[in-house]
């Protein structure tokens, strides 16, 4: 039990990751799959941010020229999350524009109907 309370943010991050994964797998609507991908990425960012945090310390902006490292939090995870968020935004924009094109062509967002309509197209 102490393990769970000691690792609380990391466990929540893993639960978020699993919620995103289940949304990706179990829903048929394309927009919901994209939302699932986003939730998965959010879980990962929460995980790495909670890894870098040290209790009772400040953010890594040097105050009054005092560069003692025991006053500040680890700055590396912040940089990793920054890159991750930018990648997540780019990926979301491309997948949303793909779903827009698919909707204009097939008038549905359900992946199975899209496969069927595309297979019909090939037979004709």
């Amino acid at each position, binding site marked *: 039990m102490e393990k769970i309370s000691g690792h609380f*943010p*990391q466990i929540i991050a893993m639960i978020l990751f699993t919620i995103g*994964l289940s949304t990706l797998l179990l829903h048929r609507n394309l927009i919901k799959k994209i939302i699932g991908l986003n939730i998965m990425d959010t879980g990962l960012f929460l995980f790495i941010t909670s*890894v870098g*945090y040290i209790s009772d310390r400040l953010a890594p902006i040097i105050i009054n*020229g005092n560069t003692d490292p025991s006053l500040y939090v680890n700055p590396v995870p912040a*940089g990793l999350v*920054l*890159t991750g968020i930018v990648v997540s935004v780019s990926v979301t924009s491309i997948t949303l*524009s793909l779903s827009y094109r698919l909707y204009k062509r097939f008038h549905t967002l359900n992946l199975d109907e899209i496969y069927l309509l595309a297979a019909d197209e090939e037979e004709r």
Partner: protein
Amino acid sequence: MKSNFKDFFSERINGTKDWLEDVGKLDETVTKTHSEIRHTEHLINTLFEVNTPKKEKHVSSSFPISYYISAGICIVVILVVLIATVCSLPEFGVVNSQMKEVSDRYVQSGMKETGAVNAVAGMILDYRAFDTLGESFVLFTALNCVWILLRTNRSSVERYFPLTEDNILVQAAKVSVPVILVYGIYVIINGHISPGGGFSGGAILGAGLILFSEAFGDEIAGKFVTEKRFKVICSAALLFYCLSKAYSFYVGANHLDSIISTGTPGRIISAGLILPLDIAVGIIVCLNMYGIYCMFKKGRV
């Protein structure tokens, strides 16, 4: 007088009734002809077997039950494994002794070696600048892909309610857009002294531009950000980033001395190349966000 009005109106009403009857008869004829045409078409189809009606493909609205069960088991197993993994790692909020080697130097010597008071800005734009270069190009790739998918020359925008007619939005935007833009510029320029930086400032500026375009319309926004200006400024910012980082890496790898000094930490003009790079990154992020928004809204910048 009254009788005149009464006659006048009853004439009109009778005339309309006759007209409606005629229309009704016409409608009947049209419907009858329509059904006759369909009947003939069906006869031709059955006789010559053209366009055989496709078998009714039943699109099931849900997965088969076995898929749900196996997916559920998979998800539960993955959740248990992940939680077990995470619990065997160091606790939350406790000092991790392995990470001290790298992060201590960023904090201790960051201000002296890079000149940036913000240790994270010093890390992403000086120590690990190659990753940030790649990251800006990820945004550029996304803009290119969205351009390929959504770029059209159609002139009309399908909108049910153009937001420029919404008075609340317009009045609120008149007050908030200048504040947002100035705040974004502040965050970019102070990126190396306080929390902030090119990416967050660029996102704020991009959001300000999107609000401006929504509230005041495409024509006014299009006069401010034309396609040619967009391409030129975006490419110039990316080229500046590439070339300045190329200079910095070349000089570092060959152990030459860089001509750019780090300045006194805490002033705005300091930290060597970090301030110009922050500005370049801010411009890139702002224009890419606005460009992607324009592709979705009207198909061109």
